[in-house]
């Protein structure tokens, strides 16, 4: 278990507000205890960092195949409001589509 995270149920871990400064929404990582062994602290931090971006809606999400990427974790999902939100190339990555 990465310090500061909280297990919600057998398939989800929460990265609570305050894990990094300025988070607007929590992070939620879909992961069970088997895969949690591979969870990198850097990926969790990336999930939390994305939660600080303007206009993010509901939560910064990550899938069980999450690993550390450029800015955003690979396995990450984030949705932004069209008026207040942003778009980021790091949220798509280099291998587009």
């Amino acid at each position, binding site marked *: 278990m990465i310090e500061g995270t909280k297990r919600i149920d057998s398939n989800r871990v929460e990265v609570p507000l305050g894990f990094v400064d300025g988070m607007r929404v929590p992070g939620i990582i879909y992961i069970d205890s*088997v895969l949690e062994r591979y969870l990198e602290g850097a990926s969790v931090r990336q999930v939390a960092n994305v939660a600080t971006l303007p206009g993010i809606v509901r939560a910064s999400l990550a899938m069980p195949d999450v690993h550390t990427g450029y800015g955003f974790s690979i396995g990450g999902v984030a949705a932004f409001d069209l008026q207040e939100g942003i778009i980021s190339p790091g949220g798509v990555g280099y*291998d587009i*589509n």
Partner: protein
Amino acid sequence: MRDLVEVLYREIPSGVGSKGKLRLSKEDEKRIIRKGALWAVENGMGEKEDLDHTESGGVLEGADPAVISDKAYERGAAQQGTLGSGNHFLEIQYVEEIYDEAAASRLGIFPEQVTIMIHTGSRGFGHQVCTDYLEVMERAVRKYGIKLPDRELACAPFNSPEAQDYMAAMKAAANYAWANRQCITHWCREAIMKTLGLSPGDLGLSLIYDVAHNIAKVEEHMVEGRIKSLVVHRKGATRAFPPGHRELPDDYRPVGQPVLIPGDMGRASYLLLGTERAMEETFGSTCHGAGRVLSRHQAIRQAKGRAIWREMEDAGIIVRSAGKKTLAEEMSEAYKDISNVVEVVHNAGISRKVARMRPMGVVKG
């Protein structure tokens, strides 16, 4: 199988910076950018039915050739219709297990059926688009005074010209990727027909689904009881829309959107379906693959002195690769077990298992 893998390796260009059979002018590339997979079909590579079974019909509206750098055009000119390297692959698989017979049959999947899975994207073209726009965004961050915890999160307000240009360029790359897989699909069909001496009618190689997993899209989602348009970023995540969604083709609407989850080259891949729960919790998204546990570097070190291709052959999988290094980087132990990953998304209800496929032949870049 050995012959088939050899033919596919020969017919589908692969490897780092691989160049294809197509030599495109800038005007050709502009057409591809606007038309996506439709460009390939119009040029005799594939059927209209393929487009029905492709996310967004294989083309996003709003791709703009004017926001693409010369360097991206240069890199894209020879790479259309190529597999590339790294985790990109082409696999001949068979259906090893079915979890939902009714859904599988709706998708045209049955036990022991032979399937082909293709994993590649927009190649150097998309890579250059990302590189170009990261620079644009770094300037935008200063211009709009956005506070970031990590400069790699460089971004711009969605309504700004910088963001709109990136969106138009990213769509261009997405369309390039859809055209790329459509060309490869067509050449696979041709190669298999030729090798096995089959007619197009006997081949029966219809497209189950083509889906993106590194993309940003404007979509409608329910937020606090209201439908809102949002820009959903999926980076190593797959769209997983539920039954009844209007973006699904008629024949799949009763069961939901097919989701392809490639595993590592030695274990398995999965076919899943999108669910209502994904729509409610994850903006209609699920996982995309196994995810690495060893870095490329670590994998190469651990594979030293081993013949990965022979280990795979002993396990009944014929593999052909442009580079020995790729096989080391891509060996099974470098990845998490895909079954563990799929178990989580299935149990969490953000997609559901339909079938598991096992690799028999692998072409790697």
